[in-house]
Each structure stands twice: as structure tokens, then as C-alpha cells.
């Protein structure tokens, strides 16, 4: 109850923090999509390279996010800037997005690609018209995972000066102000769910009905 009171009382500040949160994530997501999808596509036929990159990605994934921020902030040129926060988030998106692009492209039924080849489609046409659309559900699943993860990890970016919902949690902790912590935590959770829900809607719209009929 007191949490609700706190929420209502500080609605303006909270709205600001939420917007900042969304802004950070959107920015990071844009870069992540461009970078990791392209790389995923580029490495699709180079298994060794892919395995190497996936190894790197999973190592990055296993580094506690707070320490990535901590390290980035000491690197000249990154510092307390938003660049550090975005960079860290983009790094974390590497595994789910790049891996899913790579796997999904390679998992497209061999016989379908053979049919496409047999029909005279060029490599590029096969990539764009067949492989990517068919890989899309899996790629999208990866993007969703990355996005939800980002929503959570972004909260830790307050330790390097970002202002977002994580601030409610961090300050709530130092001030032992539980309503703040709860408000922050719940809002982040809700944001994660909403973002995921929106993505699910987009996914439904974008994916050929021929693909989700079997699920």
C-alpha cells in the first residue's frame, strides 16, 4: 500500500526514470540488432569462426554485469558516459542474438534449401527469401531474450551514473527505503513483461502464418 502511495507521489520522477530506461534500452537494442544480426549472417557458413565467437559471447555472458560496467567506466573514452552503458548492454545481447541468428540459419531444413537451389534461386535470394524468413521465429526469440535481459541489466547501469529505474532500487537500498526498491523492482519487471508482450505482438504480425500454424 505504502508502495502505491510512494508511486503516486513520485509519479513524475518515476516517469522520467522509466523513459530514460526505455531510451537506453532502445539505443542499445538498435546497435545490438544491427551488429549481431549482420555478424550472425556473416558467420553462418563458417563454423569454426562461429564457434569461436559464440565462445567469446558466452564468456561475456558469464561475466557479472556489474563488473562489466565497473571495467568500462575506467576505460578512457567510455567513462561515466551513456556510451559505457550502451556498450555493456550491446555486449550482453551478443550471445542471444548472434547465436540465434547463426543457429536458426543453419537449422533451416536442408531439403527446403535444396528445393530453393534446385529452382534456380541465387544465394542471396535464398538468404533473404527463404532462410531469413524461416529463421525469423528463432531470431526473434533471441531478440526477445536479449531485450528482457537488457531491461534487467540496465538497472545496474546506475552504478556508472545512468539515471533509470535502477536508481530507485539502488537508492532504495542505501536509504533502506523498501517502497522505493519495490517500486523500482516491480516497474522493471512490468517493463520487461510489457516489452516482451509488445515483441510477441510484433512477432505475430511479422511471422508468416505458415510458420506458427504447427505450434
Amino acid at each position: 500500500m505504502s508502495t502505491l502511495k510512494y508511486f503516486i507521489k513520485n509519479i513524475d520522477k518515476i516517469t522520467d526514470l522509466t523513459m530514460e530506461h526505455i531510451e537506453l534500452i532502445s539505443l542499445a537494442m538498435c546497435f545490438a540488432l544491427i551488429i549481431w544480426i549482420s555478424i550472425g549472417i556473416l558467420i553462418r557458413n563458417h563454423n569454426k569462426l562461429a564457434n569461436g565467437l559464440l565462445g567469446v559471447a558466452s564468456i561475456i555472458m558469464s561475466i557479472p554485469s556489474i563488473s562489466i560496467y565497473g571495467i568500462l567506466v575506467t576505460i578512457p573514452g567510455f567513462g561515466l558516459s551513456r556510451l559505457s552503458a550502451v556498450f555493456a548492454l550491446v555486449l550482453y545481447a551478443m550471445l542471444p542474438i548472434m547465436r540465434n541468428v547463426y543457429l536458426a540459419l543453419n537449422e533451416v531444413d536442408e531439403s527446403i534449401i535444396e528445393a530453393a537451389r534446385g529452382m534456380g534461386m541465387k544465394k542471396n535470394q535464398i538468404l533473404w527469401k527463404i532462410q531469413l524468413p524461416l529463421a525469423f521465429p528463432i531470431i526473434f526469440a533471441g531478440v526477445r531474450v536479449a531485450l528482457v535481459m537488457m531491461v534487467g541489466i540496465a538497472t545496474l547501469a546506475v552504478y556508472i551514473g545512468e539515471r533509470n529505474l535502477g536508481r530507485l532500487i539502488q537508492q532504495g537500498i542505501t536509504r533502506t527505503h523498501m517502497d522505493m526498491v519495490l517500486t523500482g523492482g516491480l516497474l522493471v519487471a512490468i517493463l520487461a513483461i510489457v516489452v516482451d508482450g509488445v515483441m510477441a505482438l510484433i512477432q505475430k504480425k511479422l511471422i508468416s502464418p505458415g510458420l506458427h500454424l504447427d505450434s
Partner: protein
Amino acid sequence: KDSELPAIKVSSKAWTEQLTLGSMTLQYLEAKGYEVEDRTGLGETPMLRPAIQSGEIDLYWEYTGTTLMVNMKSDVVTDSKECYEMVKKWDAETNNITWLDPANANNTYILMVREDFAKEKNLATVSELADYIKAGNEIRLGAGIEFVERPDGIKGLETLYDFKFDRDLLSSMAIGITYEALKNGQVDVAMGFGTDGRIISMNFNVLEDNLKFFPVYNPAPIVRSEILEQYPDLESDLNKLPALLTGEVLQELNRRVDVDGLEPEEAAEEFLRANGLID
């Protein structure tokens, strides 16, 4: 005043007193008609220092002892005035940063115990605590991480008072959690800050630093000198604040936030209004 000039980027550390001071400065300057930008709660000293030196922020409240110990790596100075002059001179010369007037409050580290515990074990000073521990009693200490690591933290204290906390019984945790832990009886002695509002409301006794180990931590606004040149009135305007901030005032401000549940902004606004600095 002159819209050509850049906004003043006001920052602070990320805990109650700092947030309140930061917000107070912001609101005050804004009321005075300055163009300001809110960068409060940016981080701890290790982050704010480089930020103000590189011009990423323009102004925040720093404690004399902090600069002396952390940045100048000097020995402990327990005299307020001496300490202030040292850091002011150093910053002006090496970093082109100006220390404005200090407030007459000392937000130094303190060691706290629960009132009943103090009575029961008869503890009033750090020396008594040291003796108590040396007598073989087990004491659980809760402290923020930096207190464990900093030279003006545990290690120095132990050296001066000639005792040792049992490291197995030491928990480091987020600043602020120490109060909760002490209240809930999960630790026996907790590190705190001298001006924290919870000391009174949670019925803690502060152990007197009878050998004067802890340096003085007088808060004062520090500003990039360049900004002061651009805004000639800024120094005199800002110096009105430290004059009003005694230890009691700060502690009350902190209490309003940490105990009464006000937002730092609200507490700051209340203060400014009460003192007629804004309308």
C-alpha cells in the same frame, strides 16, 4: 542569467545526504535564475572526481576529509580548518577547482551500537570497544565496502586503538544496509555516518572517537573555477548554503528523508523554503 552560458551541471553522490545537498543546490540555483542541469546521484568519489576534472560535471558537495585522504593521499588531519585549507589549496593549484565555504557539520565515519547493547556491555567509546574485543569477546561488525578498504577505515582504526576486528565476523554491505542490520541485531557494531538521521530514530549510540582517529569530513560545494569565472555571482550565492548547514540541521534533513520518508528533493525544498531561500 546570460543564456549564452552553458548550464551548470550539478552532481552528487548517491546517498541521502548527498542527494539532498545536490537537490538543494539545484533548486536554489534554479530559483536564482541560473540555468542548471541535474546530474545528481552520479556515483561515488572515484567517479565524481574524474568527472569534475574533465568538465563532465561542474559542481558537487565534497567532504574535506575525503579529498584529503582519497585524492591527496595525505595523512589524517583532525583539525577542520587546517584540513580545509589544505584541500582548497591543493585543488586550486592542481585541478583548477574551487572549494567554497565549508558547512559546520562533520559527516565522518562513526561506529554505532544499539542503545541496549551499549548499556549492557558498558560501551561508550571506541577504546572501550577495543578493550571489550581484546578481552576475547566476539563482535560482529557491519560496514560499507569502502570503509573496509580505505586507509581511514578499519585498518587505521585498528592500528591506532590497537585491536583487531575478527574478519570472519565482518560483513561488508551496501551503505545504508548497515543501519538495518544493526537494528535487526544481525551485527553488533555498525559503521555509519555522523550526520545520518537514523542514528537517533533507531536508538543507536555513537561510540566516541576518543583518540580522534577519524578525519574531519566537512561538506563544501566544490566548483570548477572556470564556471565561477563565467558566473561572477555564483560564489557568493552558493556560500549562503554552507552557512546554514550545521551538524544538527544536516542530521535533521537526513532524518526527514530516511525516517520520515520524504524525498531528498522535498526535504531540500522544505529547508530552502524555511530559510527563505526560495518562495
